């Protein structure tokens, strides 16, 4: 398979970024939007063509999807340990290409409407292109180090876009928070990479992931504190993934990241960047699975399941619709994580892996749709809060219908996309781990409940007295909504298990009717409850909230995780550790340095007499120099 053109997929957005970035002031805003959309359209076409070629024409040899790699050496350390730059195509990479392309293109189109009138219009598109470039690079990476480089690049673009409204203090703080928390997690990732490099001698995914390769066969050769060092490395790499994918307890940045423009939330914090952690585990899945009897996968499973439940509970009580969506994203990411965690490798045992990727795919579509729909609503009413909304279905029909489709999809109602992927995840969990299955089902109910809560809250419920009558958004914004809505309807019918599997051999997946019935039942219960509570304005919800008392308060305050972090950092780290160190530094380290400095100047002042300007003095010094050297080094030292 000829891969040469796939390198263009990331390079085109990079070119657009450079173009818009360098000529920021000289390009008219109207033009820059078109440039951005045009560049990404080409990347999208190339991605779709690649996918077609890969899945249907030349990717499969003897029933197994092949991995295609094209790379050049960038830095050489030893014979095997080197850093390459290149592209790697395998089923998940190609699938991610489609996800990134489609969502990014839709967001680009949408932003032309949403960001209109904004001063930094060109800058915004430049950042979007930078992000798309980085994300493509991450997806196509051929080795751990390359993925790490792009991993940081998406982090930077995310930082830039969260802080896009840089005059708002909260946006700046959120950007910093996102960057610092994910960077902190990436430290684990980096250490993991270095351990892998040290003990296996390679960063290359193909070599690492080969089930018959050295890395997997000899995982037990070195151990540290009861676990193999490779296991430690995988745990640390998962910490990096958990940071990006907002797993508990590293999730705190994601809700705050909603300070960024809504299209950004749709692209980065719902569909693409936050799934990088899931993608990373999937990318190294053979290692996770084979090393130390999937020890790390169990961690992945429980962290995922807990995050999923934790986020779903918080989502119930939030009133900022973007935050609800953010917690919902976290919850769904937890779903994907535990699906990977309960997955096997061969054939039908690998259903969790397949389901996780399937859910990643469908979730990207309907969650981007939800965010863009929410953006459309926010655009109309100029507020993020539920209490400022209500009865909007009459004013915004297209937004309403598409939002409903997305809500049904995430709630897991057939035949919408979310149902199919969620069902596969529950099947996988049911077969492996009953506890996680129960959590999964419960979270499915919660999801249906909180999603319909905001759906009813926005489009039904009380009539709010609007200052300006809300109106439907312009075509540039509704078009992406419609496209994504269509994808959210049909996305579930893709026979994913034929294409994307852990061992790259397709299998046939069947609907497990009893499990599906349970899932649908739970979802319906959630929807009906939401309908009772929020369809018409009533005080049922408030009464319940009062009834739960402390529990409600804890949930509304997100279980005080943020406060806990603040306590640890401010009260303990800053006050008890950093301040004394700073004092010490100032007094002794700085003091010493200053002392050296002033002594240097003083010495320089004292010796200036040596340079008298008289040539006879110079000659004297010359001769004395020779004599002293001769005396010291010949007659004293050597004898």
């Amino acid at each position, binding site marked *: 398979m000829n891969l040469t053109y796939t390198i263009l997929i990331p390079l085109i957005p990079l070119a657009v970024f450079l173009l818009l970035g360098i000529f920021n002031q000289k390009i008219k805003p109207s033009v820059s939007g078109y440039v951005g959309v045009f560049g990404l359209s080409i990347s999208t076409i190339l991605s779709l063509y690649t996918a077609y070629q890969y899945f249907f024409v030349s990717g499969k040899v003897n029933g197994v999807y092949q991995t295609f790699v094209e790379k050049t050496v960038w830095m050489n350390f030893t014979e095997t340990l080197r850093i390459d730059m290149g592209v790697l195509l395998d089923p998940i990479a190609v699938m991610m290409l489609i996800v990134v392309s489609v969502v990014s293109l839709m967001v680009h189109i949408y932003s032309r409407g949403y960001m209109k009138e904004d001063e930094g219009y060109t800058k915004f598109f430049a950042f979007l292109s930078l992000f798309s470039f980085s994300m493509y690079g991450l997806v196509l990476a051929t080795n751990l180090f390359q993925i790490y480089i792009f991993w940081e690049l998406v982090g930077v673009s995310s930082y830039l876009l969260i802080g896009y409204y840089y005059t708002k203090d909260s946006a700046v703080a959120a950007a910093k928070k996102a960057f610092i928390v994910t960077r902190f997690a990436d430290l684990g990732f980096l250490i993991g990479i270095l351990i892998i490099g040290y003990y296996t001698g390679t960063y290359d995914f193909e070599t690492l992931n080969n089930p018959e390769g050295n890395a997997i066969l000899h995982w037990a050769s070195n151990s540290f504190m009861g676990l193999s060092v490779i296991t430690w490395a995988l745990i640390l790499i998962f910490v990096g993934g958990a940071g990006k994918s907002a797993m508990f307890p590293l999730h705190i940045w994601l809700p705050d990241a909603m300070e960024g423009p809504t299209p950004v939330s749709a692209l980065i914090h719902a569909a693409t960047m936050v799934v990088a952690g899931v993608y990373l585990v999937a990318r190294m899945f053979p290692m996770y699975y084979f090393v130390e009897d999937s020890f790390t996968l169990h961690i992945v499973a429980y962290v995922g399941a807990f995050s999923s439940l934790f986020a779903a509970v918080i989502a119930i009580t939030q009133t900022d619709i973007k935050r609800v969506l953010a917690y919902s994203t976290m919850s769904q990411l937890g779903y994907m994580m535990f699906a990977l965690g309960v997955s096997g490798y061969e054939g039908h045992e690998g259903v969790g892996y397949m389901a996780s990727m399937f859910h990643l795919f469908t979730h990207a579509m309907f969650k981007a749709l939800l965010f863009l729909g929410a953006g459309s609503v926010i655009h109309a009413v100029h507020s993020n809060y539920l209490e400022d909304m209500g009865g909007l279905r009459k004013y915004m029909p297209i937004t309403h219908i598409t939002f409903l489709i997305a809500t049904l999809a995430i709630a897991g109602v057939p035949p919408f996309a979310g149902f199919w992927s969620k069902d596969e995840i529950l099947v996988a969990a049911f077969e492996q781990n009953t506890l996680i299955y129960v959590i999964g089902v419960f979270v499915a109910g919660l999801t249906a409940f909180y999603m319909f809560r905001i759906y009813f809250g926005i489009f039904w419920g009380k009539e709010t007295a609007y200052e300006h009558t809300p109106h439907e958004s312009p075509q540039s914004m509704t078009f992406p909504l419609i496209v994504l809505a269509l994808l959210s309807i049909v996305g579930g019918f893709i026979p994913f298990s034929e294409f994307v599997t852990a061992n790259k051999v397709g299998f046939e997946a069947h609907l497990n009717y009893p499990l599906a019935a349970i899932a649908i039942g739970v979802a319906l219960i959630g929807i009906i409850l939401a309908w009772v509570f929020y369809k018409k304005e009533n005080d049922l919800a408030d009464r319940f909230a009062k009834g739960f008392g402390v529990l409600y308060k804890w949930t509304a305050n997100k279980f005080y995780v943020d406060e806990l972090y603040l306590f640890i950092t401010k009260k303990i780290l800053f006050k008890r550790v950093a301040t004394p160190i700073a004092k010490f530094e100032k007094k002794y380290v700085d003091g010493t340095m200053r002392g050296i*400095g002033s002594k*240097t*100047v003083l*010495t*320089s*002042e004292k*010796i*200036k007499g*040596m*340079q008298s*300007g008289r*040539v006879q*003095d*110079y*000659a004297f*010094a*010359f*001769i*004395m*120099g*020779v004599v002293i*050297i*001769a005396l010291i*080094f*010949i*007659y004293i*030292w*050597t004898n």
Partner: protein
Amino acid sequence: MTIDSFLIMRHEILLLAIILLLVAGEIFIPENKKNSMVHLAIFLFGLHTVIGFLPIEEDSMFGGSFHTNDLIHFFKSVLNVGVLILLLISADWLQEKIVSQNRGTEFFILMFSSLFGMYFMISAGDFLMFYLGLELSTLPVAALAAYNITKRISSESGIKFILSSALASGVSLFGMSMLYATSGSIYFNDIIEVIAPSNLTLLGAVLFFAGLAFKISLVPFHFWTADVYEGAPISIASYLSVISKGAAVFILMILLFTVLKPLIHAWENIVYSIALATMFIGNLFALRQQNMKRFLAFSSIAQAGFILLGLITGTQLGTATIVYFVLIYICSNLAAFGVVQSISLQTGKENMSDYEGLYRTNPNLSLVMMLALFSLAGIPPVAGFFGKFFLFTAAASEGYYLLVFFAVVNVIISLYYYLLVVRAMFLRKSDHPIPFFKNNLYMRLGLILTVIGILVLGLYSPLYDYIYELSSVFN
């Protein structure tokens, strides 16, 4: 020996031809067209530089008193490039101030003669040839230092230089005679066979070393440097600090690494202590200088101290790092001197305080100066960083950790005063900044060449590999 054998002297023959051509030109070109002598000289020397890069066979002549190999050949080309840049940045000064007094041509003749002497000095195969080359390279510079005959300070500089260098070469010659006395030969190849660390030999080596240390301006043989640099025309100061110093370092390295190699246990201690003294004294004095020429003089003393870190190793790595460092140092220092030259020519100002606010009026010039100073200070990613880094690596690989530590301390001190100039140019405001001016073609060309050197030499690793390969000849 056939006529072809003379081809190994191509550098020398061509340069001699240029000198003779210039003499003829001086005679036959009418007075009102003397301006063209500058163009002619630069053109001819440019041609010579380009031809110089053509390979030369490894061979020796005159019974071994003259020999050449790839590294020597390469180093002659390096000197050529340095002199070419120097001529480019001096062209305006020559045309404006000197040719009008009808004294243009002897500048070139003197300078080329000095370079001619250096060729012989670094190609020398015995002490006689070496000494002749050394003298030939030194004496014309004394005349050049006194070139501004209308200025008293220039004459003073010339006198100081000639007196000091007479003393130095006298001492050096005394040392050589002792080496001859103990070994019975002046040929390097013969001396290597018989040299042994007797007291007289060591004394001879020290005296001989002092002569070259004078040219490199190592402490305590450095006192002439600042006075001569300050008084001499800027072109000559830069010639002394770059070309002359580079050639002296190179021949000192050759002699220490070959002829005097058996005495390494004696001279490594000497080099060690002189390196320390030179770095500290140079830097401490540079700290207080206000005159840019004196400032660069002391900074160049300190730089010489850094070079000794490569010299102390006595290895192939040391050779390669020294040649590499000298190449980078030529570019960086000439860039700094070029800016000083250009400003002095336009405004007559030579003090650091005059540079305040330069960035606002002459941004390009300030940037060149900044790059040059960063390179001298060794800030990555400009070439100077790599030069220093490799020198320190070479010293550390031989176990001189303490010396490297002190060198790093000195880098920090030097950073302070280099940044003083940068601060003056970029951060300070001035009521009377140097007004904007445009440089002539030659000056711009010269500065561009140095900037390319500063930016590219460090990052273009094949060059270092090439030098390293060539350096195997002395080990």
